[in-house]
Structure formats: C-alpha cells, structure tokens
C-alpha cells in the first residue's frame, strides 16, 4: 500500500482496522502519527456533529404518537359507531319491509290469511256483546256508520294484520263465525270482488275509502251479508 493509498483509506474511514491498514501503520512512525491525527480530527468532527438536541424531544415524540393514536382510536370508534348504525338502520328497514309490506297481492288472499291466523279465537257460541254504539265508535276512523246491527256481533276490534290496520268484526254465523273486515284501500293489494278456498268463501266491495270484506264458511250466504252491509252502512269520504 503506497502512501497516497494509505492516507486516502484513513480519510475514508479513520477507524479502519483491516490487516492492510494495521500492517501499513506498523513500524512506520510517520504513518502512525498521521493515523493518530486523523483519529483526533474525527473525534473533533464527531464532537462538532453532536449538535444539541432540543430538550424533551423524546417526550414530545411519545406525546405526539399518543395523541395521534388516540385520534386514530377515536376515528376507529366513529367508524365502528357508523357501521353499527348502518347495520341497525338496515335491520330497521328490513323489519319495516317485512312487517308492513303486504305479502298478499289481492284482498281475498289477505282476508283468508287473516281468518286462518285467528282461527280458534272466536267460536260461534260466543256472546254478542258489542253494542251498535261501540261499533260505530270504532267505525269513525274508517269514516263509516252502521245504521243498525246486521247480526249478532261478538267482537269488533282493530287489528294490524300483515301491516294493515283494519277493523275486524266477528258475527255469529250459521255454523261458524262470519268475519267482516274493514280495510283502508291500498294500492299494492289488488281488489277482488269474490274469492274462495276449500273452506271459506268471501266477497269484497268498496265502501268509501275502504274495502269491506266478508268471509264465511262455504255454507254461509256471503252475498246476503254483503247486501245487509251495504244497506245498513253509510260512508263519507
């Protein structure tokens, strides 16, 4: 290793300790002195490079990270909350949809389902306990009035079946109760004037803003009920 190379190597790295450098320094006082000078220079450089670090910089770094991760958590919490809210809303919408949307496309299916749903609740031997006055009180929300009773009325109650608020009247029939439903007209449920299945048959008509549906067993003269209804009720729009 020549002189120039030796000096250059030390300038590049004063702490170089490889065999070549060690050998070059050995038994050569000039080189040894040069190496020592460069080491001293490097100590001075190191000292100069060690500029003062702002006080409490490490505390600031930790504080800043703590704040940032707290913000991050808060954001995460907000996201979680928003997510939960969205899910809740979705469930709400779905529930509403299932609860209040009609599963029946026509008024006949609706009425039959309603009857089957409440099968066994009413028996034909029940007491006719509903007075004309209390019936008419319930009729007010449908803008209708009964001028006279059309039969023995065992029950008159509002019920929300399949999301439709209706007035459900149960009259004593020939062998089984006769059901009369007063249902506000709804566009999504189509009107059918007559319907039947194996056990029941029924008839519906428009009265005021409502559909009035009569459902009775097959032996029941539904048409007669229907006529009586038309004759004894008055509807205002």
């Amino acid at each position, binding site marked *: 290793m020549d002189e120039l190379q030796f000096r*250059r190597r030390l*300038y*590049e*790295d*004063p702490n170089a300790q490889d065999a070549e450098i060690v050998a070059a320094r050995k038994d050569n006082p000039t080189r040894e*002195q*040069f190496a020592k*000078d*460069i080491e*001293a*220079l*490097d100590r*001075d*450089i*190191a*000292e*100069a*490079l*060690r*500029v003062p*670090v*702002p006080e409490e*910089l*490490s505390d*600031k*770094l*930790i504080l*800043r*990270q703590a704040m*940032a*991760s707290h913000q991050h958590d808060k954001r995460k919490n907000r996201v979680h909350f928003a997510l939960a809210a969205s899910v809740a809303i979705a469930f709400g919408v779905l529930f509403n949809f299932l609860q209040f949307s009609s599963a029946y496309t026509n008024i006949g299916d609706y009425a039959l389902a309603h009857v089957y749903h409440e099968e066994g609740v009413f028996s034909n031997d029940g007491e006719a306990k509903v007075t004309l006055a209390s019936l008419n009180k319930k009729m007010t929300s449908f803008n209708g009035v009964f001028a006279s009773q059309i039969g023995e009325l065992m029950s008159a109650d509002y019920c929300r079946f399949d999301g439709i608020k209706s007035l459900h009247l149960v009259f004593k029939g020939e062998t089984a109760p006769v059901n009369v439903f007063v249902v506000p007209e709804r566009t999504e449920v189509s009107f059918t004037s007559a319907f039947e299945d194996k056990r029941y048959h029924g008839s519906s008509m428009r009265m005021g803003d409502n559909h009035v549906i009569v459902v009775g067993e097959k032996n029941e003269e539904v048409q007669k009920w229907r006529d009586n209804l038309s004759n004894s009720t008055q509807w205002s729009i």
Partner: protein
Amino acid sequence: MSTKQVRYEALVKALHTDIYRYAYWLVQDKQVAEDLVQETFLRAWRALDSLKDEKAAKSWLITILRRENARRFERKRFEMGEYEESSITDTVSPSTEQELENHWLRARINEMPVDYREPLVLQVIGGFSGEEIAELLDLNKNTVMTRLFRARNQLKEALEKTPLKRGTHNG
C-alpha cells in the same frame, strides 16, 4: 401498555438523538429538523409492525426521514437558497477552547456540500459502514468512499489554513 407502545418508546429513547442530528445536518435548520423528526417518528409508529429487525431500526428511520424530506421539497418548493451563516451560527457565544473549535468546525461542515456532509454524518454519527451508507443513499460504495475522503480532506485543509487550529492538526 401495548407491546407496540413499548417498542415505540424504546425506539424513541434509543434513537431520537442520532436521528435529530442527522436531520439537522441534512436540512441545516433546527426547527425544520425537529418537524422532520416528529413526522418521521409518527410514520414509524404507524408502520412499526413492518420493522422486523431491531438492528435495522436506525437505517429504517433514516430512510423514512429522507423520504419525508424529499416530500417536503415537493410540497412547497422549500427555498433554502444559499447557506446563510446567520441562520446556522449558534447564537450562544462559545467560551471554552473546545467550544470554539466546535463552533468553527460546525461552520465548516455547514459550508460543505450536502453530498459530502451526508455520508460523513452517517458514518460518524450513525456508525454506518461504507456499504450501508451506499445502500441508504442509493449510491455505489466507491462514490461514498470518495465523498468521505473529500469531506475529511476539505476539513483538514481548512484547519491547516486557519490560525486557530494551526499546530494541532498540521500532521
């Protein structure tokens, strides 16, 4: 406290001094250096899971800091302009001889082109080898060694020209 938190605090305690000094010599401004270090450690926190080897932590932080610094230039075309002595010189007047030397040497290092200064800082403060510096700066090793040589050579020559230091480093 989470293990991530513990790791982060250990990282800050062990390395913030070196990282701040590296930043200072890179940007030559105390405030900018501090901001840069803050930004660097914040990014380090977010990416802490990607740091697998603790031994690589310092070079990892330096890489983040260099990227952050480059971004700073993109962001607002930061005009450092020519080196201004007034902004860099310590306002504290040096008293002891050692402080005087330090002060003088700092000024010389500040005058040095950043291309020479940066490898020097990485070697002396960071303790990185020529290969490691080459990798950090994306240069080949010979270029790094040449720059280190020139950096020290400049300082040595400046010292020899200066009455203050004459007699100490006249080799």
